[in-house]
């Protein structure tokens, strides 16, 4: 058998590239194609079919008339309603708030997660490392309603249980308690801080995983060359996880118009509304709560289009920088 195979003239197939064509590839990879069919169906059903609902943006949609096709068509009326007048001022303000909150949260989250991962990577005592990791990723499993409750209590005045004010006053840093949640200037900070506290540990996990994939011989070589810890961090660890960082960044940029929803919803109030209200809350208040589905659809379309532009842009820049492209 063995000799036969070795001497077989057909053995040359793998050496000569042969064009199979599209269908040839499909047939030769039929198991894979078959396996991807359910995913494809899932995507079509849940991601593409709902796009037909965008017709609502050009209609005066009334739920009492169930069919999408029997609604009254109004052209671009809903777009005019959303982008002009008081609604327009408000919507544009909310876009600003969404971008700002998202950006601050993203940058702070990224920098801190990478920093913590680098620090944890340097810890030699496994026990200590595990304890720190557990403590920092636990809050990820709390729901936002609980986190919002904790945050609002922490930031309240001391007589309502506000620990932050209590500590600051005991340390004589401030004389009067600060009402963190009634001052619009603090709101973005509160959102970014809460996000950081909740997601920090969770976000480090993927970087730590990427670090384990770095070849130890690189560190050994660096040791031989007399590199100290910071140099190893800078020249080996960071470049080693650069691809992961870039891919995650591109993915996050697609979500930049999703600045969360719960925390702004639970902690926002009239006093801070100028800084706290984000697109999703506007949509909830002026769309869903008022039964104005068409307006909500326009806002949703706007978000999708902007997100696609942003993610393509980030992907393009990443390609130009010589990093991996996601799509």
């Amino acid at each position, binding site marked *: 058998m063995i000799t036969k195979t070795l001497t077989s003239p057909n053995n040359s197939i793998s050496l000569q590239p042969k064009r199979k064509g599209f269908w040839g590839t499909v047939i030769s990879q039929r198991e894979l194609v078959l396996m991807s069919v*359910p995913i494809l169906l899932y995507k079509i059903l849940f991601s593409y079919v709902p796009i037909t609902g965008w017709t609502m943006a050009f209609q005066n949609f009334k739920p*009492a008339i169930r069919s999408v096709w029997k609604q009254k068509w109004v052209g671009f009326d809903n777009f005019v309603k959303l982008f002009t007048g008081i609604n327009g001022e408000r919507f544009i303000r909310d876009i600003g708030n969404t971008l700002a909150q998202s950006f601050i949260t993203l940058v702070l989250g990224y920098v801190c997660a990478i920093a913590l991962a680098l620090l944890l990577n340097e810890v030699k005592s496994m026990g200590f490392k595990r304890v720190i990791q557990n403590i920092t990723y636990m809050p990820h499993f709390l729901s936002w309603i609980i986190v919002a409750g904790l945050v609002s209590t922490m930031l309240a005045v001391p007589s309502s249980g506000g620990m932050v004010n209590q500590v600051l006053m005991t340390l004589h840093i401030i004389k009067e308690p600060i*009402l963190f949640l009634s001052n619009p200037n603090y709101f973005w900070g509160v959102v970014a801080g809460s996000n950081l506290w909740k997601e920090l540990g969770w976000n480090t996990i993927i970087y730590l995983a990427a670090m384990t994939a770095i070849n130890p011989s690189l560190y050994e070589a660096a040791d031989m060359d007399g590199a100290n810890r910071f140099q190893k961090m800078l020249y080996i660890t960071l470049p080693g996880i650069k691809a992961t960082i870039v891919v995650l960044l591109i993915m996050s940029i697609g979500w930049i118009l999703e600045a969360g929803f719960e925390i702004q919803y639970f902690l926002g109030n009239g*006093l801070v509304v*100028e800084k706290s209200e984000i697109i999703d809350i506007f949509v*909830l208040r*002026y*769309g869903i709560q008022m039964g104005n*589905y068409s307006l909500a659809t326009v806002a949703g379309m706007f978000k999708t289009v902007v997100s696609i532009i942003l993610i393509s842009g980030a992907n393009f820049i990443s390609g130009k920088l010589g990093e991996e492209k996601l799509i």
Partner: protein
Amino acid sequence: MKRFALILLALVLVLSTAACGSGANTTDNSASTVASSSTPASETSTAAASGSTLPALTPDKPVTISAWLTSSFAAPAADNKITKLLKDKLGVTINYEIITPDNADQKTGVMLAGGEYPDLVGATDLNGRFITGKALIPLDDYLTADKADLLFEHVRPYWNRLATDAGDGAKHIYIFPNYNRYYGEITGGTNYGASGFWIQKALLADQNYPDLSNMTLEKYFKMIEDYKTKYPTIDGQPTIGYEILASTGREWGMTNPPEYLAGAPNNGGVIVDSNNVATIFANKDIAKRYFQFLNQMNAKGLIDRESFTQTYDQYLAKLATGRVLGMYDQRWDFGNANDALVSQKKDERTWVSTMPTYDGIAPYYADRDVMNINQGFGVSVSCKQPDVVVSFLNTMLSEEWQKILNWGIEGEDYSVGADGKFVRSDAQRQQQKDLVWRSSNLLEAFRDLAPKHQGSYSDGNAFSPDTQPSEFFATLSDYDKNFLTSYGKQTWRDFLNQPPENPVYYPCWNITLPDGSDAQMANTQMTDTALQFLPKAILAAPSDFENIWKQYTDAIAKVNTKAIEDVVNQGIQDRIANWGGSK
């Protein structure tokens, strides 16, 4: 072999997705057939006990009714005795889905977009969105003397008020009003459930029960200031002078007081003049005067600065500590805080209402009880057997079941005296204050939305223990008895004005602003503007007030307030023309 396994795996995956899809459908169907198979709609031959032609409810034909309710009450405990009684006597099981009022709006929007509803929809939506969204069936066919006789009698005298146009030009009854439809003699008048500037009893006692007539904002806050200076802490916690309610869905706690101060009754955001013309007052002088006054009181440290950041629950929790001296609110709204104080035996920290007004105007805080149109149970279009559900609601309105729902079970929760009057023993009264006991023995959420036999029963007993005068006096604590005697009053209601007859159109707050209309949009924008600027105006340094007030009125000027006024005035004229008729 490996290749075959892969193909098999792929096939299984494809089939399982398909199966999942159809699987979901089958469960959907079966959920509704559980109910319908047990009592087929065709089987209407057996007459109900009340002599109607609707299907009778008996334990051998179990029915499951799904119900969606907007209520502050929680679902009953699993071992609830009334739930068990419903099952044993009528074979009815209710599946609850309860939404608190502040989340009802968005849930309503989502349900309407989905188009699937539980059998019973119990909403408190003033905009009638379930009706105009075609989620409810017209009930007119069931409302005759030989079908749902009790429900028919419930709505008959008020037919024109209750009938609503769902957008197809014809008016039908869709919802049974849940409160203030009275039968027989209206007993009670003991408790007061509505608006006032409330003030703590301990404060009044400490100041030797001062005269509360001709109250003004100045006098009201002077009392608070004096007490707060004398007692800077209550139970070790800082005393709070005045609390403002401004949480989502309850913004009226902040915006409504000016109308009362100007001597007008509760019409929501408008004041109606003697020619029946409604005007928005949010940016007028009467409002400015109130908020400027609050601004000055804030400078004295009398206003709780956390008022505007707290949720409704946090507001109630603060009231329940007993250190809040005063607030504007409606009695039903802070009932939970009041109950909590009573169960802690802190009766002296509960409140009575006062009626401050501007410049000696006669106060008009108390009105005649207004029937809740647009609030209560309706039957949804998804309901497979509406006749059974209507039959259930009809049975629940019978005096027998009304007594069970409101008094409890004879012998367990009350007894009948020699004169035929219902009485409770002290132990029975006491257990009513226990919140855990209540969830196992009362059907509070259902009762909140269900049509009620308010007033009195045919045997002369009052609708519920709260309205039975003898029970009212028996449940008063010694502190309260002494308090009432000190003021020379009999009941809590005596602290209020005598309500004159309501105008025909009254009240304007329940005039519907249609979904998607300019008026509805403007109304939301008004609320948002108020929420954004009024807290700022109150908390600002007094020198900045004028500036912020100007920003506020400028922002209001951009809102299409005329759209709201037009809809409200149209509503007033419609009501004047059409209300009063019965069927």
